[in-house]
């Protein structure tokens, strides 16, 4: 029973989500509607991208706290290029390349130079934000062309072009991580690095790739952010990396690496975003948002921690039970003792 619960974190989360929706739907009729769904989905896109990238890095038993700054930096590159007259597709390419480069630098430091990921990305958290501020001269980027904002426009059923891209990316990530050999490597490297190396997995390259993927995801989040807001403030994306880590934990991604699923992260992002929208609907003042989100996160983690402890204790007990299995074990010892007695 416990094993089932621990293994099916996603299912648990979906059940909690369903119960929460039912309760909110009962308390505030009209919440459960297509409009709410489309609002939730479109306002979850940025967090979805950052969380997805962060997940890939966490799977390999690293962490990336710089993705908010990567978002800001690549959004600035996008905005500056556009305002300099670069065409939209090319500007997006610049933006994604910036994210990829930023991620590659993180990956280089962690995978090849051996700097602990928390230290390396704390450094680049400041560095990338700093580069952004230098590039923009500390000013907000406004007057973005209509073409960019059109990417976030509703194409029908509340879906924008960006929604479709992000959902496609989520599905792609799911396929790569679940169904391909290289995807399996991310799990293996985080689960037991020595074992992965022992079996010929290119441990360093896998970690490096994870950081590059995260950078590209953060850059895409920068595109979404700019298109949705219509301007790029200095602090674009600031603090979202911590929210993304929280989402990952909530979605069942172990910070120790090796476990987690795209479905879990997806559900957790929708969950967190839904809370925000539900609070509005229930007319609870917005300043309760953080308190409630934090409380929910902590309760899930406490429960999860207890379950894990119990499972660990069981595994340990099973391991040492080896020595308590019947009298045959003591054959050698008895023989030796008989020998001693006979002397």
């Amino acid at each position, binding site marked *: 029973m416990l094993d089932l619960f621990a293994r099916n974190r996603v299912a648990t989360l979906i059940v909690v989500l369903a119960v929460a929706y039912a309760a909110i739907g009962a308390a505030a009729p009209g919440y459960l509607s297509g409009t709410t769904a489309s609002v939730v989905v479109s306002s979850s896109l940025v967090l979805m991208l950052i969380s997805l990238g962060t997940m890939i890095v966490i799977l390999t038993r690293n962490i990336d706290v710089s993705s908010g700054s990567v978002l800001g930096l690549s959004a600035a590159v996008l905005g500056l290029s556009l305002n300099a007259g670069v065409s939209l597709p090319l500007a997006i390419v610049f933006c994604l390349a910036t994210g990829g480069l930023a991620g590659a630098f993180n990956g280089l430091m962690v995978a090849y130079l051996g700097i602990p990921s928390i230290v390396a990305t704390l450094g680049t958290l400041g560095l990338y934000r700093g580069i952004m501020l230098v590039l923009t001269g500390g000013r907000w980027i406004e007057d973005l062309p209509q073409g960019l904002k059109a990417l976030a426009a509703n194409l029908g059923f509340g879906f924008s072009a960006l929604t479709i891209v992000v959902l496609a990316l989520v599905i792609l990530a799911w396929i790569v991580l679940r169904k391909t050999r290289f995807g399996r490597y991310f799990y*293996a490297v985080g689960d*037991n690095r020595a074992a*992965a190396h022992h079996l010929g997995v290119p441990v360093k390259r896998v970690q490096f790739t994870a950081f590059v993927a995260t950078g590209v995801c953060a850059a895409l989040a920068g595109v979404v952010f700019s298109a949705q807001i219509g301007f790029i403030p200095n602090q674009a994306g600031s603090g979202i990396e911590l929210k993304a880590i929280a989402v990952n934990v909530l979605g069942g991604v172990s910070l120790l690496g*090796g*476990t987690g699923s795209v479905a879990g992260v997806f559900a957790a992002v929708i969950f967190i975003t839904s809370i925000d929208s539900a609070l509005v609907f229930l007319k609870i003042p917005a300043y309760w948002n953080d308190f409630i989100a934090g409380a929910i996160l902590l309760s899930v983690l406490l429960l999860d921690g207890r379950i894990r402890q119990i499972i660990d204790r069981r595994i340990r007990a099973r391991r040492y039970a*080896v020595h308590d299995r019947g009298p045959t074990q003591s054959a050698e*010892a008895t023989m030796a003792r008989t020998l*001693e007695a006979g002397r």
Partner: protein
Amino acid sequence: MTGSPAAGRVAKLTDIWKSYGAVPVLKGVSLALQAGEVHALLGGNGAGKSSLMKIMSGVIQANSGAIEINGRALAHASPAHAQDLGLYLVPQEAHILPNQSVLENICLGLAASPRVLRSRVEQLVAELSVSLDLDAQAAALEIAERQIVEILRGLVRDARVLILDEPTSALTPFETNALFQRVRMLQAQGVGIFFISHKLREIREICGTISVLRDGVIVLSGSLDNYSDAEIIDAMSRVQIAEGSGKERGGRKVSQIGKPRLSVRGLSGEGFRNISLDVRAGEILGLAGVVGAGRTEFAETLFGLRPQTAGSVIFDGAELTKRSPRLCIDRGLVYLPEDRQQHGLFLEAPLFWNVSSYLVHRLPFFLRPGSERKVFDEFRASMGIKCTGPGQEARGLSGGNQQKVLLAKCLSARPKVLILDEPTRGVDVAARNDIYELIRKLAADGVAIILISSDFDEIEQLADRVEVMAFGQSGGEITENISVDAIARLAFGASEARHA
């Protein structure tokens, strides 16, 4: 046996040398393995077995020498390369990815399609007649099953050479039998197997040939039938004339031994059961056994680090229940852990912090570094710790000096009973003699000492009495004529013992 090039040869090592820094561990080892041969590889701790294995399986690079697997040379040290050539090392502790499925664990890193791999693994599972749920999570696997997973990893990679590193050390007799049946099946299929073990009885049961490694040299090699157990144990444990070490006993008189300090009655816990022993003031009790015999678990249970399941511990006439490290330290029962890097020292902290760390709960709220330094300086003088000063970080010291600092830390608690777990592991000869002297002096001062060691020479030199642990149980006691041979016979659980 390295000479004749047989058609069925699957592995050949020629003149392998390896040293770590200035310390040579392998001095020209040559070995060969035929298809279908089960070749026992024996050696005491530190004989070079594990280095040899790591070199064969591509984990570390030899300084010189050639390795040939299935007729092709191992060109560079990489586990994947060795596996490509057809050699797989089944380590003593399986490398398991706990969060992946069993099938994923077996097939990780292989290029074939999942369906092909699955059917191949299923076929192998059937051939070996094991029952294994391929879709279960690996974390839940039992130790024996983890080992099967490792063996399957090798087989699915078409390994023609398997190295089994102490495969039975954590298995029950039933599981051991099952493993041996599988080894015989593999043997029939022409797989060559290096079988590393401490247990002579098992070696007799499963192996056809044997090589004994001592101090980095093969001292005995050939068909197992040609050698008696006594010859093998003798080859393994023959006392080397060590470089300038004081080999004579401590010269303390038994009359110095006082009243019982610690009595353990029927103690059971994780990894050992039903252990009873007594140790008296001024006595050095050797607790001998091979790695994995349960000695460290026993000591950690005494010191309150692990839960006990049965038995009692009587310290100075009163039963010590609900033990915790703090309680034990306060009463004077002190444990020096086996792994000084992980459990002993605070490597980044200054030496004087290390020494006062055992008693940190007794220090005043506002620390007085001056007096802590003074305490350290006293130990430094009396033990001959070589360092730049009390403020030096522990990481910078040599193994021997680190061990002395650790000992000073234990002594700062003024122990009545001191449990020393492998006190000279990784320590050079000179520092080793210093530590021996210290241990003797402590005993002369009336401290009761339990000396845990896998180095039987060490026990022979120091101990007044020896308890042997084997397979998690008491393996016997030696009160007179303590010798390496006698200890080895009990510790290895040799069948030879029957007619000794």
